[in-house]
């Protein structure tokens, strides 16, 4: 087995069919879509086809609602900054404590440097949004509400449609960071209250460095990048034509694999989770197990540390990821684990396995066979663990 890749929420393998669709764009259809000749015209047509493919995946009413960008991060930044600029009198943003840094860091910056009021709505122990706190924060001063559709660490889904309707009721724009949700769960934006939605190519088997922002027709919009009139002046800069064509193809494939993702992949994820929970003591699933992406399992192993787990998994040819502090070089465990109140004893050992349509049953069986031994091995080293099990009381180090 050539390595088992269970880190698809970090990035995915580019589908062979996507690569094939992109290749002609480099040497054959290399023109600039804005040019007044056949070289350009061919590329323009391919980009418009990609726009329709993304429209179809999102169930959007119009292809012109899709604006291609260079990443999920750019889409998130564009949406929030656009709302503030389009509604200069409104000086408040609502978001959640568990967003991706693409939203959280921007909000911190806007708060510190531009005096914008930011409400960060908390979540409960399963990662569900505190709807009452959200209600209380809504006001006519809110320029934009931005909630992620699916959490990248736990896969937990927010009730986006309901949240969007509540924002509309006070006249606020509603944006969702759907980078993890697009391609994994079905969507119909044509019938939705969502004004803007971010997606990223590399999370759905397209290449890195291409994304899109859905902007519902009629939504006030101000571009973040000004320059040429590409993307109907919504995003200046010569289009990343190969990337866009790749994203279009990936969107088409995602639609075809949607059923597989929600049946076979979901079943594999559930099998993995059940087997680990049964074989390993003192571990639990984080997030809301009932309302989440079909591909994500986040398991917190108590009394051991995530980076050590990843290193041993890697030795066994398994790629996973961790919200552990040590993998990022900081000392604090993931803000998502902390926001859910996962105790430190477990937050440091939270490990994410994220599957994709490429994942096979054979791979999952191998992971199931290997994980319990790894956990046992690390616990044998841990001062918080004794032969009889968890022993947090028996160890009381000096500055704790």
């Amino acid at each position, binding site marked *: 087995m050539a390595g088992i890749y269970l880190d698809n929420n970090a990035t995915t393998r580019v589908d062979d069919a996507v690569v094939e669709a992109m290749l002609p764009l480099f040497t054959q259809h290399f023109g600039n879509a804005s040019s007044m000749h056949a070289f350009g015209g061919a590329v323009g047509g391919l980009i418009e086809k990609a726009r329709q493919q993304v429209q179809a995946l999102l169930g959007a009413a119009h292809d012109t609602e899709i604006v291609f960008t260079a990443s999920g991060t750019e889409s998130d930044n564009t949406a929030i900054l656009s709302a503030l600029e389009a509604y200069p009198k409104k*000086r408040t943003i609502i978001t959640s404590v568990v967003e991706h840094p693409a939203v959280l860091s921007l909000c911190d910056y806007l*708060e*510190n440097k531009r*005096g914008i*009021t930011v*409400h*960060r709505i908390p979540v409960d122990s399963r990662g569900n949004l505190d709807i009452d706190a959200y209600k209380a924060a809504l006001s006519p*001063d809110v320029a934009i509400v931005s909630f992620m559709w699916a959490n990248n660490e736990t896969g937990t889904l927010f009730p986006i449609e309901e949240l969007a309707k509540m924002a509309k009721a006070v006249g606020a724009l509603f944006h969702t960071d759907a980078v993890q949700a697009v391609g994994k769960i079905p969507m119909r934006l044509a019938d939705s209250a969502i004004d803007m939605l971010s997606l990223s190519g590399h999370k759905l088997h397209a290449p890195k460095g291409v994304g899109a922002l859905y902007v519902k027709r009629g939504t006030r919009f101000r571009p973040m990048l000004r320059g040429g009139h590409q993307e109907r002046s919504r995003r200046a800069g010569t289009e990343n034509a190969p990337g866009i064509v790749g994203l279009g193809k990936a969107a088409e494939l995602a639609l075809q694999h949607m059923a597989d993702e929600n049946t076979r992949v979901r079943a594999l994820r559930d099998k993995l989770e059940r087997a680990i929970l049964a074989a390993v003591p003192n571990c639990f699933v984080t997030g809301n197990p009932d309302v989440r992406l079909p591909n994500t399992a986040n398991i917190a192993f108590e*009394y*051991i*540390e*995530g*980076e*050590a787990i990843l*290193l*041993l998994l890697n*030795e066994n040819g398994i790629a996973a990821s961790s919200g*552990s*502090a*040590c*993998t990022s*070089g*900081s*000392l*604090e*465990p993931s*803000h998502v684990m*902390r926001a859910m*109140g996962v*105790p*430190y*004893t477990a937050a*440091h050992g939270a490990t994410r396995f994220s599957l994709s349509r490429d994942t096979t049953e054979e791979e999952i069986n191998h992971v199931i066979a290997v994980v319990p031994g790894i956990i046992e091995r690390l616990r*044998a*080293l*841990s*001062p*918080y663990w*004794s032969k009889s099990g968890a022993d*947090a009381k028996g*160890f*009381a*180090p*000096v*500055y*704790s």
Partner: protein
Amino acid sequence: MWNYTDKVKEHFFNPKNAGALETANAVGEVGSITCGDALKLMMKVNPDTNVIEDARFQTFGCGSAIASSSALTEMIIGKTVDEALVITNRDIAEYLGGLPPEKMHCSVMGAEALRAAIANFKGEEWVDDHEEGELVCKCFGIDAAMIERAVTVNNLTTLEEVTNYTKAGGSCQTCHEKIEEVLEAVLAKQAAKPPEKSPLLPVAGIKPAPAPAPKADAPVAAAPKMTNVQRMQSIMMAIEEIRPQLQRDGGDVELVDIDGKDIYVRLSGACTGCSQSASTMMGVQMKLVEKLGEFVRVKPASMLVGA
């Protein structure tokens, strides 16, 4: 992925001297589960010769924490207590062929556990002297207070000077924006001081009398006007609301002083003395900003000049 040396990998994948040592007569326990690493070092010291005859460890932590612990035991076995005492965290890192800068704290933990264990053997009490505010530069473990001190004492004005004096910002550079913010804040504070050098002004390390009221502070737009007493009460109430959550993690927070937009607090219990306090501080700050409807900055009480 971290670029670990072969030596680090060797000590992580096949740690030496792991596990409990039943015959130990010197035990050092440092770190905390909150911070993500903790180490229990157990040694068997010959009371006649003071030679460390055996050493074992139990570690909760990442790859380099486990490797550092393993390396430490190998380094001290056979040494006398006094010989062992001169081992520094750098020696541990060097033994491992180097550690990534962000991981140097793992070697620090090893050196501290050693000191704690030796103190235990000698019947002394080991006090952890490691005090960290919010780390600004992770590569060199420099906090805001250290930068502020260097800037004030040496009249520094540029980022380059700060790097030259403190090393902060000299490696990966991700902290440059934060260093500039600290620098700007200090310079702004200096500029706000009356130009003539009054003999009553603090020279260094003396806390100026707290200003009677944050007079010049224009209220942030849209913040409802509160009297100073109301404001103080809201701050105290907000702190009270945060405490149960911290207490659940074995910590606590206490309000020490309010100086305009600067709210000074003291953290205690789990988390003092580790960088985790930085994120706890941030949490407290977020809560206060939310409650007050104005921007305030939460600082550790240790940053009160002279405290």
